[in-house]
């Protein structure tokens, strides 16, 4: 069985590259296990890697690997279900609908069929990567990123969706709007139900 590969990030942090696919539930539990290790100041996860920051002197990587060996999906804090009101009126909605072979209203309906999962959080504080998209669909990033995406924009990038918490440049396809801080309290592994709604 392949073991996670530990990659030092400078002299005060460690990245743990996972050998294969992992569920968000497992990564949620793994982050808890890393955060509980002696000397760890902070721990977080991407979709293919975990990371931790040391408070003081780094500990041997073997201790990190040993802590992860016993992690089971579901052994972390229970997942929470959230509801996200989205107004499907983004400038890229027609293009996404055409690419998906349906109308704009059908795009919104697709998102109500099943909840999305918080796969990772980062890029911006509170930016949650939600996935997978309905029916395994995807939406390629725009060839030219917009210089400014407004806070609250609901966008698609590849097979992930997300709400921009703050204004910033961005290359995702914008298909709607939500409250900018609507996902500020989610954690990796949480479920998010999309609720289409008119937002002035």
């Amino acid at each position: 069985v392949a073991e996670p590969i530990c990659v030092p990030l400078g002299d005060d942090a460690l990245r743990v590259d996972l050998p294969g696919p992992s569920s968000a539930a497992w990564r949620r539990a793994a982050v808890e296990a890393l955060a509980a290790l002696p000397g760890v100041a902070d721990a977080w996860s991407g979709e293919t890697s975990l990371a931790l920051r040391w408070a003081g002197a780094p500990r041997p990587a073997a201790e990190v690997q040993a802590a992860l060996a016993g992690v089971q999906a579901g052994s972390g804090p229970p997942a929470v279900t959230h509801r996200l009101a989205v107004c499907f009126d983004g400038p890229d909605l027609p293009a996404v609908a055409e690419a998906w072979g349906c109308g704009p209203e059908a795009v919104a309906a697709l998102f109500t069929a099943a909840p999305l999962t918080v796969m990772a959080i980062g890029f911006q504080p509170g930016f949650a990567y939600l996935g997978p998209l309905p029916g395994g669909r995807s939406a390629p990033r725009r060839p030219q990123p917009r210089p400014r995406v407004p806070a609250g924009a609901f966008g698609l990038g590849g097979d992930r969706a997300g709400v921009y918490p703050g204004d910033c440049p961005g290359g995702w396809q914008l298909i709607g709007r939500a409250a900018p801080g609507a996902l500020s309290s989610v954690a990796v592994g949480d479920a998010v139900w999309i609720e289409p709604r008119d937002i002035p």
Partner: protein
Amino acid sequence: VSRVLQVLSCGGPAWWVQGPAPFAATRGHPPGGPLDPAALADGLAALDAPPGARPLAVEHTGVLEVAAGEAPLWLAQVEPDAVALWRLRAGERLRLPGPTGARVAGLVIGADAAHAPTAGPWAPLPPGAWAAAGPPWSGPRAPKDRIPRPRPRGPVRVLPVADAGPDAWSALVDGQWAVAPAADRRGVALVGGPRALGAGSTARSRPVVPGAIQALPDGRFVVLGPDGPTLGGYPLVGVVLAADRGRVWNAAPGAEVAFAGGGAREGHG
């Protein structure tokens, strides 16, 4: 004493560098903190800060006018070559010069912060803001007006990360770099050296840290700052060692910088 220092005016953006961090990287929040950690340490040392003191500190980009509150206090303004010490009586005003030879100037206030006045890893410092803090200590035991700071020499030390490949690493350590004018607390771009094309991007964003050097698709390098992202999709060339990060983050626009490989501490990796 709950109000020890008031900001009267700022000649440019200024911010608190300490404060509670209610969120963590698990929610995408970077660690924040000073743009020049070594300056903060030198300011504390110059003030003979008691062990475990939680410093109240400010970084400012222009002239800063302050006034002492209800009690006297000590200030240590950290410049590239020296620490200047100031003693203010209650209510006394002081006009502090802006940074010279650096992007920001650091100001450490001789008081224990009972409750720091920030709401996140850092916060803007508007005119009129008060620093709310606990009782100030008595100040340096052997006060001097200026305490020299030895300026670090040699290349900035980087621990390599193999994401971007050997060509990108060679470009980084062989190039002569300058700090781009457009930099902020999220990151500092490097200009002047060779471009490392072909590093690509990762399929999924991976964890990154302050001091990480990303290779962008157009071949440029960016050194992530204390407010940088916690996940990034560009491959890493390396990570600047903690002690050297302030040399890049707080370098004046156009300042030359060189990089070299540096080792990790024992027990790591």
